[in-house]
């Protein structure tokens, strides 16, 4: 199933195709001989992570549109080629190979599943192309498994869990039970929470690893109830989270214990009925930041390009991925991956791209963007997009593991 160019995939989508395709093609000012800077986006348009992947694709498309309107990268148009990884590492690698060999892309962006991120990271390093990981959170991508070619926009699970672990312990209690998705992302999250929660005086009373794609959580919830924790910590991903929340509500478990965790996304909350919308979570970006410059305008531009939709944190990941590459290429005056990687190290996002109170920087030691966290509580009675009451903004640099503790050692090829 080659869904080669995003325009074609867009056409399939809900009639919005015509406008989407128009926006993604280089604008009229470019002549056919202009040699585009090609960005290969490996992301999920089908499978468990499809909704999140689509948001990252939209964010990247908006960034490409803006860049092209402003003269492209180094005077060359930007072209994004999207391939579907279906949330599977093998598929992701296969598609990345096609993007590299058939389309000669200059950079890679994308991925939602941490498992895909890890394999694409190795692929990128082997082929000397920068991979700007948009949305896979597993710690070791910018930790023990880091490499010179890989950068990451979204947070590590450590940053993510630090966003609200203290709040959860202080507010809701010290006895924790985990329901954790059984792959790299979940394992990483649970290890981080465990370390933080025990550090704050909490105890872990139990937990279960849940296979990806589980639809019936009843038996897990029976176990969780038997352990009678204060906090039921959900570390699930994609559609699994939605299914779990619904069943927790149906069983009335949210009356006897507090539910919370790290990742809960605008797209997921929107898919839940009102009764299943609750809990304390961390957002990595939020569209409603009164008083923060450029944010409202960004939301408006996104609205114009995708009518009826508000940017989620995933949209922002995609948006930053493309803009960061463009900034670095401009600074390096080259699209050579090695030069761009050097330029990305220590790069601070300007306010119109950071779109938050702080100024996130790509840390040179591990290539992790130190973005801020937006912990908050789900706005149960709100309507889309007013689905979250943000408590706070926590600058990433204040909660990230120090660079010397991540286990990352970067070496460049000579």
């Amino acid at each position, binding site marked *: 199933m080659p869904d080669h160019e995003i325009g074609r995939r867009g056409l399939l989508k809900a009639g919005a195709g015509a406008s989407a395709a128009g926006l993604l093609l280089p604008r009229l000012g470019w002549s056919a001989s202009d040699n585009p800077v090609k960005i290969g986006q490996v992301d999920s348009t089908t499978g468990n992570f499809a909704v999140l992947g689509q948001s990252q694709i939209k964010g990247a498309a908006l960034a490409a549109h803006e860049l092209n309107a402003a003269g492209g990268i180094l005077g060359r148009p930007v072209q994004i080629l999207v391939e579907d990884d279906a949330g599977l590492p093998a598929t992701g690698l296969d598609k990345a190979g096609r993007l590299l060999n058939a389309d000669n892309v200059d950079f890679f962006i994308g991925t939602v599943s941490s498992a895909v991120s890890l394999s694409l990271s190795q692929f990128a390093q082997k082929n000397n192309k920068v991979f700007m990981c948009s949305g896979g959170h597993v710690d070791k991508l910018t930790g023990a498994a880091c490499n010179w070619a890989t950068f990451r926009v979204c947070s590590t699970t450590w940053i993510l869990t630090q966003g609200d672990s203290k709040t959860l312990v202080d507010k809701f209690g010290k006895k924790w039970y985990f329901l954790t998705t059984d792959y790299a992302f979940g394992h990483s999250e649970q290890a981080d929470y465990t370390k933080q929660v025990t550090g704050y005086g909490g105890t872990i009373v139990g937990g279960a690893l849940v296979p990806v794609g589980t639809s019936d959580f*009843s038996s897990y919830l029976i176990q969780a109830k*038997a352990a009678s924790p204060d906090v039921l910590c959900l570390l699930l991903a994609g559609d699994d989270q939605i299914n779990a929340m*619904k069943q927790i509500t*149906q*069983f009335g478990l949210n009356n006897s214990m507090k539910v919370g965790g790290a990742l809960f996304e605008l797209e997921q909350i929107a*898919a839940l009925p009102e009764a299943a919308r609750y809990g304390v979570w961390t957002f990595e970006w939020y569209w409603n930041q009164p008083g923060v410059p450029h944010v409202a305008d960004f939301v408006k531009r996104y609205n114009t390009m995708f009518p009826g939709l508000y940017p989620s944190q995933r949209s922002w990941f995609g948006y930053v991925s493309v803009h960061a590459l463009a900034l670095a290429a401009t600074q390096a005056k080259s699209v050579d991956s090695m030069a761009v990687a050097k330029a990305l190290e220590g790069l601070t996002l300007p306010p119109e791209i950071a779109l938050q109170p702080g100024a996130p920087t790509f840390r040179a030691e591990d290539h992790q963007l130190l973005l801020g966290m937006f912990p908050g509580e789900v706005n149960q009675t709100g309507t889309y997009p007013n689905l979250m009451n943000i408590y706070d903004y926590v600058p990433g640099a204040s909660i990230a593991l120090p660079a010397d503790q991540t286990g990352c050692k970067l070496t460049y090829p000579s």
Partner: protein
Amino acid sequence: MLLDIIFNAFNGLIVGSFYALMAIGLSLILGLNGVINFAHGGFMALAAYLAFTLVPYVGFWGALVIAPILAGGVGYVVEQLVVRRLYLRDPLYSLLATFGLALIFQDLLRTIWGAQGLPLAIPDFLNQPVSSTYFFVTGYRLFVVALAIISTAGLFAILRFTRLGVRIRAGNKDLETISAVGVNIYLLRSANFVLGIMFAGLAGILAAGQLGLTPTMGDSLIMPSFVAIVVGGVGSLLGSLLGGLIIGVASGVTTAFFPAASEVVIYLIMGVMLIVRPRGLFGQEGLFE
């Protein structure tokens, strides 16, 4: 711990009766049409999405009746255009064709209703636990079990007491002979396919009430029903029913000891069954042997 196991076994029965409901439509089609319908999950999802669209107009109960009938209509068209051409061919053709259909359904749903998950509203009074001790027995799950029992009993009644049912059973045994005595087997197979799809539709809507709607929902639902059929025995509706209950309970009880294995245990049971008794519990002799 004992209470834990009892809870999980009981819960497994609830889950299992749902598997059984899904498996019966599949088993029906496999029996008479001789087609392993990989698009079954697609039909489930289709009916669920149709119900979602219908709920504002006719309410949950109306949608629960109308959507499976509409799905049955789509099933009829699909049978006429695609499935009918597969009857005399190698089973591989039907595998490929229905697998292709499954992908088409999935993309169709994504195109019409979007990739974003959607909630299917169920009546409020069903949406809470029946007692605080047995918190996992919600009104809705009881309703699903009741409906599984009623519709299975209804199907058995149809097969036992109606002319159509007698012909379906006869056709299961020997299609050529009933054709020779004047039964229009093409019509019979169409009717059987539609009946199977209506079961799929019902199961799909019931699943959506608990899990919500996603274009891929059929995929995750269909695998346990295949396992239920293999365990219960290909061609036997009673077997499918029992197969569903067995894997439901096995998976539930496993969760009490080793949660990470709750998924794999149903495939283990299937594997053991295929080695020890390939025809399944109540399967026809010769199939898979």
